[in-house]
């Protein structure tokens, strides 16, 4: 463990960030299937031969490929893939200048801060969040949220099936009325209001501390970010977004802050492993199928 800590402490910041970005390029850079193979090869090249990560051409190739493949389908691409494209641009610009780590760190703080500011502004001005409507809708209708609603409020899973049934009925045309009342109760109203304002507070907090940059202590920035990831992403399950934001945040952790650096790496590992519990039944079924066949 001590040896591992020494290795983590000893890695130069820019090298760590560039290598982790290459790993992200491999595992989560592409949404279009045609791009997946290209980025896996490119990212793998960077992981195996880290010297190429210092070449602007490596990152500009990644930028070019993602812009061409994702740009053509921009209306379909996940936001975190677009965020990662901005980050590859930052990497390309940084390695082509002598102050690499300063450019990476500043870009990381700005990109994280602005991403959360954009998300915060959508919630603030989108018209469905402040009165708890959207969280209420998620708690009733989103299959990721429904088990949590059941656990937090005690409302039965049968009752919570109402929204899904109503959406299916509207979708299939057997229900054609403009207003469809849903079974709900006060506990859901209260939890959805709390969840709405909690999300707003943490997202707004992250935007502020990252945009203030070095005027705020690094611990504050990363504490806010980790709080958000630990409390929101297990429910909303967007580990890929968490991984990209955490990769960028490594650029903001100076070499002396070993505990922060270890913390960020542990958070990345947790984000990757967050897939596992949800998929255990599927894995078991796949293993069972394999041996049956």
């Amino acid at each position, binding site marked *: 463990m001590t040896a591992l800590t020494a290795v983590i402490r000893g890695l130069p910041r820019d090298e760590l960030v560039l290598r982790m970005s290459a790993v992200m390029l491999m595992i989560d850079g592409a949404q279009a299937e045609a791009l997946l193979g290209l980025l896996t090869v490119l990212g793998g090249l960077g992981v195996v031969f880290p010297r190429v990560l210092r070449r602007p051409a490596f990152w500009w190739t990644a930028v070019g490929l993602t812009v061409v493949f994702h740009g053509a389908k921009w209306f379909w691409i996940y936001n975190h893939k677009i965020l990662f494209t901005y980050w590859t641009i930052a990497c390309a610009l940084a390695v082509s200048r002598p102050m690499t780590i300063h450019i990476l760190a*500043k*870009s990381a703080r700005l*990109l994280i801060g602005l991403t959360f500011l954009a998300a915060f502004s959508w919630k603030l001005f*989108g018209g469905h969040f402040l009165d708890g409507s959207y969280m209420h*809708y998620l708690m009733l209708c989103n299959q990721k949220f429904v088990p949590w609603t059941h656990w937090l409020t005690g409302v039965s899973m049968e009752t919570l099936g109402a929204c899904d049934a109503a959406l299916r009925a509207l979708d299939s*045309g057997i229900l054609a009325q403009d207003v469809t009342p849903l079974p709900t109760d006060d506990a859901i*109203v209260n939890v959805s209001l709390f969840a709405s304002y909690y999300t707003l507070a943490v997202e707004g907090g992250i935007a502020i501390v990252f945009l203030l940059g070095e005027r705020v202590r690094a611990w504050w920035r990363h504490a806010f970010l980790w709080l958000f990831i630990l409390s929101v992403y297990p429910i909303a399950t967007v580990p890929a977004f968490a991984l990209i934001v955490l990769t960028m945040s490594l650029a903001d952790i100076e070499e002396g802050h070993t505990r922060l650096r270890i913390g960020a790496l542990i958070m990345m590992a947790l984000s990757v492993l967050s897939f596992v519990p949800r998929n255990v039944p599927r894995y078991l079924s796949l293993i069972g199928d394999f041996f049956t066949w």
Partner: protein
Amino acid sequence: MSRCAIFRGDPAGAVIAAESPLDWQGEASSSSATLCRTLSQDAFALYVGVRRPSALRGNRSQASLARRVALIPAGLLVIVYLCQVALTQTHDLLPSKGGGFGMYSTPDHRFFEFEVTDSDSKTYRGDHKSFYASHWRLYQRTMMMPSEELLCAVASAWRESTLRRVPITDSMLGPSAQAARGWLESDEEWGADLTLADPSESVVTSDDTHSSASIVTPASIRVRIWQTRFSAATGALHREPLGQGIEWKRGRCEALP
């Protein structure tokens, strides 16, 4: 004459930025300019560098350049965000798409409604899932940001398919319609407020597994997209049309009034 200053640097010796350029000043011989003494054993800690004033100015300008370079990706993010917000307001772009980070902020459930009228003036609902099965790219593209042109392209693609008339239960809508019906009917209290269509109602499908079903030749096709909203105040889902929709008739495609 040279001046000494404390720099924060990387192990390769590249001076990143003068943290406090004149923290310590003194004269140094020119030969000492080549001797940067590490103050700490930590390879990433502070370095004492000896730089000529012109070099200090150079470092400051480099730091300033680094800050400006870092603004480029951030500026791109802001530009895309502003375009995305504008497109959601003017062209019905789905808030969760387009790089504006509007996911998990507004409901984004949308669905198609097809109405096919045959030469006998009978109107049937269309099975949009069968359309998705054969034209998923056009389906998704239209759903994300509908326009009159795309809706007309949808109507045109639908018209060019072989359309057959089948009961809703035999269509691709059948499984979800039946599941929804079963659930709605099992909850008497809630289901009492809802009016459900007859399950034997015929729909028009482009699913080619129904080769024996009668073919419908469309005289007109209406295509519309609906979206759902939820209001915490009423505790109800609200269905509302997204835009006007279009009607294809006699080879012409026009916006619905």
